[in-house]
């Protein structure tokens, strides 16, 4: 197939498995498919409880869109850096590979820094994990995403310093590809979270509805 030939040319090898894909790459894709369900459940929980918090703080009072847009941009650029790192690894240029992996690590850490700052600000303003539904679902969803980012950062740190002992073998390039797939997945989950929580989250005047909701519970 033309695709197989292209893959051969791009990567220099086709694994001797039934599907032509190495075991570890297929494992990572199966893991990502299952992680879709994991994050999907948390996002669905957030959406079920959207506009349902009885007490504040409410999203429209507390979410800072400009700040989060910057952190989204940072994470997107880290994805770009990741794919460049893989590109140079496939071109067997170890120095540039290490540089771009470290770029990913730095950008990912910046993103985590933004998240930590945001969490601290929210807690100071009275939104905690147990204050209301918004707090619970928001912190748990973004918290698990942040955990995934942290694990990715640690993995890539290990890749940058410990993995490529002098030479880029096809196996170590494959490992980097696996790490890259994980990192991009974390990025696309953030794309969805950003849209769902920040952009869509309170487009219809949330505070008023929840007061009405609370009134109906107390009154009826």
């Amino acid at each position: 197939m033309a695709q197989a030939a292209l893959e051969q040319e791009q990567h220099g090898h086709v694994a001797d498995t039934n599907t032509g894909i190495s075991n570890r790459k297929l494992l990572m894709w199966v893991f990502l498919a299952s992680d879709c369900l994991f994050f999907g459940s948390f996002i669905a929980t957030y959406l079920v409880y959207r506009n349902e918090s009885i007490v504040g703080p409410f999203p429209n009072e507390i979410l800072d869109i400009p700040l989060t847009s910057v952190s989204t941009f940072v994470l997107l650029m880290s994805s770009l850096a990741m794919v460049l790192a893989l590109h140079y690894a496939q071109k067997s240029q170890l120095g540039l590979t290490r540089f771009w992996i470290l770029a990913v690590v730095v950008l990912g850490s910046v993103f985590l820094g933004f998240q930590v700052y945001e969490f601290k600000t929210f807690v100071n303003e009275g939104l905690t994990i147990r204050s209301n539904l918004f707090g619970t679902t928001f912190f748990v969803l973004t918290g698990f995403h942040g955990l995934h980012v942290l694990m990715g950062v640690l993995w890539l740190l290990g890749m940058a310093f410990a993995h490529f002992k002098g030479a880029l073998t096809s196996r170590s390039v494959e490992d980097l590809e696996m790490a890259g797939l994980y990192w991009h997945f974390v990025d696309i989950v953030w794309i969805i979270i950003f849209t769902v929580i920040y952009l869509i989250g309170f487009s219809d005047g949330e505070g008023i509805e929840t007061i009405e909701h609370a009134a109906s519970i107390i009154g009826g």
Partner: protein
Amino acid sequence: MTTIAFPTLISRPTSYTGLWSWIGTVDHKRIGTLYGVTAFLYFLIGGIEALIIRGQLRTAENDLVSPEVFNQLFTMHGTTMVFMVVMPMSAAFFNWMIPLMIGARDVAFPRLNAFSYWAFLFGSIFLNLSFVFGGAPDAGWFGYANLTGNTYSPGDGVTFWALGLTILGVASLAASFNFVVTILNMRAPGMGLMKMPVFIWMALVTSVLMALAMPVIAVALIQLAMDRVLDTNFFNPVAGGDPVLWQHLFWLFGHPEVYILILPAMGIVSETLPVFSKKPLFGYPAIVLAGAVIGFMGWFVWSHHMFTVGLGPAANSAFTISTMLIAVPTGVKIFNWMGTIWGGKLHLNTSMLFSIGFIAMFIIGGLSGVTHASPPTDAQQQDTYYIVAHFHYVLFGGSILGLFAGGYYWWPKMTGKRLGETFGKWHFWTMLIGFNLTFGPMHWLGLNGMPRRISTYAEGMGWETSNAIATVGAMLIAVSVLVFIINVIRTISSKQEAEDDPWDGRTLEWSIPSPPPAYNFARIPQVKSLDDYWYTKHPELLHDERGEQAESVAPVEEDTHGGGSIHLPSMSYYPFVVAIGMSIGVIGFMDGQVDIPSTELQFPWLSAVGIVIGMWGLLGWIFEPVTEEGGH
């Protein structure tokens, strides 16, 4: 490979005998045996819980156990049977048979395989330790919120349940990834997807379902654990939380879960029926497609467990239609199995009896299941013993009988000895009669109004006779399990040696010695058709059964890496370490509150210790090569 000098505290195990060889094993056959033995022990424990339940319900207003203990018993019975018996027993057969049937030497990730088992073991031990540490969970195996919240379930039981099941979920998830990659990537040359045995197809569908469904319950359990330990608001009605959300998340997992429980048994039966009817499987593409369709459609029926929750007529109608539709592929499979038996030369040995018993009992369970598919009838049946009858017919009469069929079928392959036929037949008939005596009366008990999960009932309800019969049946089941245990002990201590292929089998696992050598296949077979081994033995049947002509056999290359020995993955104890570390870390998340909701973890240092151990194990795992130099 990378040779970072990661400090090893204990040298890597090398000997194949002794305790360390079991702790460090990465051989799929040994791991399968570990799964099987552990699952059978939990079968006994769950069975004892069931016997006590039946003893309590034997007569009206009995006081064998208190209501609190009764609640713990039925919760643990359900949790044990689903998560610690049927799933691991299926995993035992998957572990043993998938590489043998596809012509591989091991699974794709042997250490991940070992990790799955150890995580299962420690998770299940943790869950059962709840009996000792303050009471087992008592809110039902499905743990509906907000009964499971701090207000209505103070104490540690439900927290044990949530955390223990999370560990088990991780174990299943790891195993499912392993099997998907193994089946897709490691088949023998020439074995296309439509030339695989049906058992492997069912294993693939089951593993995909596990990979996609376990994350959903992991999320639900994490949310529940956070509600209990950290006082979050996921299912807290005071803050606006919705208990129905728990039901959605649980049954989004729960319905694919029941297909996870039944598809392996269906796969086993699809293997035994052709062998013992001396006929090829009828309608192979239809059975494969039906299995895949069941796996896909099983995602769209979950709210039929919630018909009485008040979702509204639109939702109820939609799920009614999807539930009724999913009976169709199941029916396709049953007709194909009957077509397999029809006109065949039947060998009614124990395995075949169990397989036929599976079909009969599963039909009964399926019929009662279809009556639940309609909300009006389900409104009467929900939370009564009619439902209990339904799911025991499909789970016991289906999964358990199917798993026993596989046990009797593959015992000679795994151990080199055949289980005794006389004892086997006694086992089958006492089990079948006992099972029907136990769960048959529950149909009319339920329709007469006896609710589920009640620890006792008033006199004069008209339920005593049926309950007494059910208790007698339960004791008969216990007797049958005893017969099985005696059969196993007699077989193990006997001196017989079965041939490599005692049943004249059709699939690849019968082409190697029994028990198989460590490397399974000396030469990886070249597969030309479905049931390839059968047509290698009987090439004259190729035209009669498949309408094909026999091809000349191409010489198979030696797969010995250039004149040397076959490389097998070396043993490793890091999976054991990571499993222990993860379990200890999760235990530390308990919060030890009894009455006063507290938001402190009781043992935060335990979590820290667990994380450190887990990280050490993980790093050791990453940096050690799969096969040591000089290993064989």
